[in-house]
Each structure stands twice: as C-alpha cells, then as structure tokens.
C-alpha cells in the first residue's frame, strides 16, 4: 500500500478517535451540567416500594433502582458531578504549581532544581494509594481533601515535564537573543518558553483528568473518598457490591459511567498527542 493511502487511513482513524472522544466527554459534561434540570430531586428520593427494580422494565427508572428505591440513572448522572469536579480541579491545581516550579527549576537550575528533582524521586517511590490512605486518615476524607491530595501527589509530574523542555529550549537561539536584548526573565519564561512547551502539558492534563477520575472513584470505593451520602460513582459501586447476587445493575451502571468518561478523555488525549506532534514521533 502506498504511504499516502496509509496516512489517509490513519487520518480517518484519528478523526474517529476525535469524534468518539468528543461525543463521550461532551455527552457526560452536558448531562452533568444539566443534571439539576434533568433530575430535580438529585437522585436522593427514596422509594422503598420500588426498591431494586430491574432495569429496562419501568419507564420511570430506565436503569432500575437501588436498594433504597432511588433511581440509578439519576444517581449516575449526579455522581458524574463529583468525578468531573475532582478531575478538573485537581489537574488545574497541579498544573499551576507544577508549571511554575518546572519553569523556575529548569531556567535557573541550582537550588530550586535540586529541590524539585529530589521531591520527584521521593514521590516516585511512594505507593500512591498507601500515601492516600495515610493522608486521609490524618485529615479525613471529603471532596476538598481529595483534591488537595491529588495536587500534592501530581504537581511533580508537570514540574518534571516542563523542566525537561526548558532544559532543551533555554540554550536555543531565540532565547539567547531575547536575553541579549535584555528581555526580563518573567517575560522570557511566560512569553517565550511557556508557549513552546505547553503542548505536552495539555496532553498530560487530559490524561490526568482521566486518571484522577479513576483514583477518586477507587478511593471513594474503599470508603476513603467523598462523603458516602453524596452520590458518587465509587460510592455507588461500594454500596452495590453487597447486592451483587441479586441486583447486578446497581454495580454495573456506575462502573460503566466511569469507563466511558475515562475512555472519552483518553481518546481525546491520544488524539491531542498526535495532533500536537506533527512529526508523528510519538504515534509511530
């Protein structure tokens, strides 16, 4: 097959990846944004008469009901709120800290550089989940603490990535000329270096939103995450496990929601990686 036909096919595949990613991620974001309109009761309405209704049997409860008769579909949509909040806020926090630390340590080297790199070594050696359970045993679970925990454990990833790019960029001509004509450091960092290294950072952000949604749901599933009274995917799975014998749907749908959300983000991340790297080095 010719190279052109091959690359056309690859392009079609990339387009498919993009469309699927947007559909999944966009659909879930829309559902979450309008969740209060779609389900005014917030999925909290208990109806013991209708407990453990099987899915696809009752038009009022398309995905069935849980052991307290609450609508599974409503709770799945409401649970998405928590997951997206944790995913987006934790990544936003980690990016801000990580990028600043990476820029400073890569550009100035010296003391800050050493601090960042040693931090990175230590964090790479700590098993995340164990760090998490210790942290949560100290400060308690809950949404805010979970986000802080994720920021603390992930900023180093961005710092390392940015530092690496800065190291390879700082001796290039355009930076040297900027320095030569006396551009201020802050200007060099933000106007010249940052735009040149932001691509891989965006890819890592997308993948980490996905990853953090997984981590949040694991921790909540283990009873260490958000308040069990708030509908969340991990919490629903933990509840549903007890009823696995006779009510599979209580455990299947929240998990499916996690899978589809994370898959959508991973598809987008994959697509972004190839689009931001026109040489196709990483996708070969």
């Amino acid at each position: 097959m010719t190279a052109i036909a091959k690359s056309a096919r690859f392009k079609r595949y990339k387009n498919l990846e993009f469309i699927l990613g947007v559909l999944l991620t966009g659909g879930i974001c829309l559902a979450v944004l309008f969740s209060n309109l779609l389900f005014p009761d917030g999925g909290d309405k208990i109806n013991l008469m209708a407990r453990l209704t099987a899915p696809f049997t009752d038009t009022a409860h398309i995905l069935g009901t849980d052991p307290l008769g609450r609508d599974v579909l409503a709770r799945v949509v409401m649970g998405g709120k928590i997951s997206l909040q944790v995913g987006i806020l934790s990544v936003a926090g980690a990016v801000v800290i990580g990028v600043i630390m990476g820029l400073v340590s890569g550009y100035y080297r010296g003391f800050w550089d050493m601090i960042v790199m040693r931090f990175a070594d230590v964090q790479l050696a700590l098993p995340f989940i164990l760090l998490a359970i210790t942290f949560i045993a100290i400060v308690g679970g809950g949404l805010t603490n979970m986000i802080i925990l994720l920021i603390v454990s992930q900023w180093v990833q961005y710092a390392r990535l940015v530092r690496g790019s800065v190291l390879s960029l700082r001796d290039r001509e355009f930076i040297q000329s900027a320095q030569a004509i006396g551009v201020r450091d802050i200007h060099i960092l933000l106007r010249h270096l940052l735009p040149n290294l932001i691509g891989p950072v965006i890819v890592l952000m997308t993948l980490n939103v996905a990853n953090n949604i997984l981590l949040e749901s694991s921790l909540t599933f283990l009873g260490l995450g958000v308040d069990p009274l708030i509908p969340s995917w991990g919490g629903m799975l933990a509840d549903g496990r007890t009823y696995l014998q006779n009510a599979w749907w209580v455990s299947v749908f929240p998990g499916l929601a996690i899978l589809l959300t994370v898959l959508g983000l991973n598809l987008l991340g994959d697509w972004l990686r190839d689009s931001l790297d026109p040489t196709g080095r990483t996708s070969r």
Partner: protein
Amino acid sequence: MAGFLIKRILQAAFVIVAVTLVVAFAVRLTGDPALMLSQGAGSITEEDLARIREALGVNKPFLVQYTDFFLGIFTLDFGRSFLGGTPVIDLIGNALPATLMLAFASMFVSIAVSIPLGIKAAVSRGKWADQFIRIISLIGLSFPNFWLAIMLVLLFSITLQWLPPSGMDGFASFLMPAITMGIILTATNVRLVRTSMLETMQSQYIMVARAKGLSESTVLYKHALRNCAIPLITYFGLQFGGLLGGIVVVERVFNWPGLGTLAFDAVGARDYPVLQAVITVLSMLIVGVNLLVDIAYGLIDPRIRTE
C-alpha cells in the same frame, strides 16, 4: 562507572531516608493509638491513657521513635503490632509473599498477552488490526480496576460459579486477581511492545536478515524481539512500582491476604508500627527495583552513566 554507581546508590539511600521520615511523621498524625485501643473500655482516665502511651512507646520524642524505627530496618526489627503484640516482621512475612505472587502472576498475564498483540500491531502498522488493537488497549486503560474485579466476580463466581470470589486458596483463586491486574497492565504494555518493535524493525540488521531470505517469523521472533528485550525489560521493571500501588485496591476487593489488606486494617486501628513498616517495605521494593534497572542500564549503555 564507580562514580555513577555511588551517585545512584546515594540517591536511593536519600530517597529511603526521606520516605521513612515522611511516613513515620505522617503515620503519627493519624491519631492517638491509645484512644483507639481503649475504645469501648468504659471509664478510662487520663492516667490510663498515659500508661498505654508509655507502654506503646508513643510518648517519646518523635526523633527518638524515628531513630528506633530506622535502625530497626537494618535488623528487620519493625517492632510489635499495637494489636495483639505480634512482631510486625511476622505479619509482613506472611503478607509480602501473597502480594509478590499476585504481582508476578499479573506481570506474567500481561507479558503473555501484550507481546504477541504488540508484535501484531507493529507488523500491521496503520492497518485495521493495528487500529483495532490500539482501541482495545485504550479501553483497557480506561477500566477502573476495582470495577473490573467486581464484574469478573459477577460473571465467574456468581453467574457461572467457576471461581472462588475471594481469598487466596490454590491456583483458581489467583485467576481473577491476576487477570484484573493483568488486563490493565497489558493496555500500556501493548503500546510499549509496538513502539519498540517498530524502532527495531527499522534497524539495518533486520534488513540484512530479510535480505538473507530468512522467514518472516524468524526475523520477528529471533532477531527483532530479542533486540527489543532490553528496553522492554526495563519498562516492565519500572512498572513494578505502579503495579504494587494498584494491587492494594484489588487485594481489598478479593480479600487477598497481602500487604494492602494489612495496611488498611492498620490505618483503621492506628497501628503505627504495621502501617509504617508496610509503606517502608513497599517503597524499598520500588526504589530497589528502580536502582537495579538503572544500574543494569548504565552497564549496557555508557551514555546513561555520563548524564
């Protein structure tokens, strides 16, 4: 080479000291073990609590407690559990093999699946098989491991009743935990195998092998795969750390008697010696594996040493 070795070993030693310090400090912030132990004991006076703290040794200054703990690592003496007084090293000795066996079983599943799939993807690069494998690996990467575990239990233990839902008892009990971990590892590994095969396939010795008229399978398995083995083994080695972290959750779902389960129970009971020992042992394993990989790599590739 000696300089490189010393530098790497010093770095590893620093990491161990820092990790143990962080862990010992953090563990002591989790709460008062005396309160946990005396729960439900009725009337407990402040003197009783002080006596319990005295007996546990948690009233000493932090640095004294830390030094005791750190020096104990060298003699494998991690103290005694606050609950029942069993030596911690015995608890670890029982749990570590369970975790390691599960880790190796998962690695085995993942390598057995990802090598053929990765080679297939590399060989049919850009064709539908490649793209299909890519989509499948993305889906695998998106699975929450505890949910996959629950779904396997639903299918194989509840519906089909083929496999035990939990515990560690014979070969059958290994299947579901190892497959759960294996599938998620495989998703990353397929891509690693594919990329390194593609790189190797462009080398001149592969062209030579083809020019000699060797069969395609000899070229692939005898020449290309063997040459990718070194980077692949490196990746697999570095994965080990992440694997140990992920296992904690899966252990919990399958009630696996490993380090993860031990750590969970220890947090609940504020059992400092056990918790800090588990985290230390896991971190040392991760640091040790990374150090070995680094050194092996430095031996093979001189460019790494001078970096």
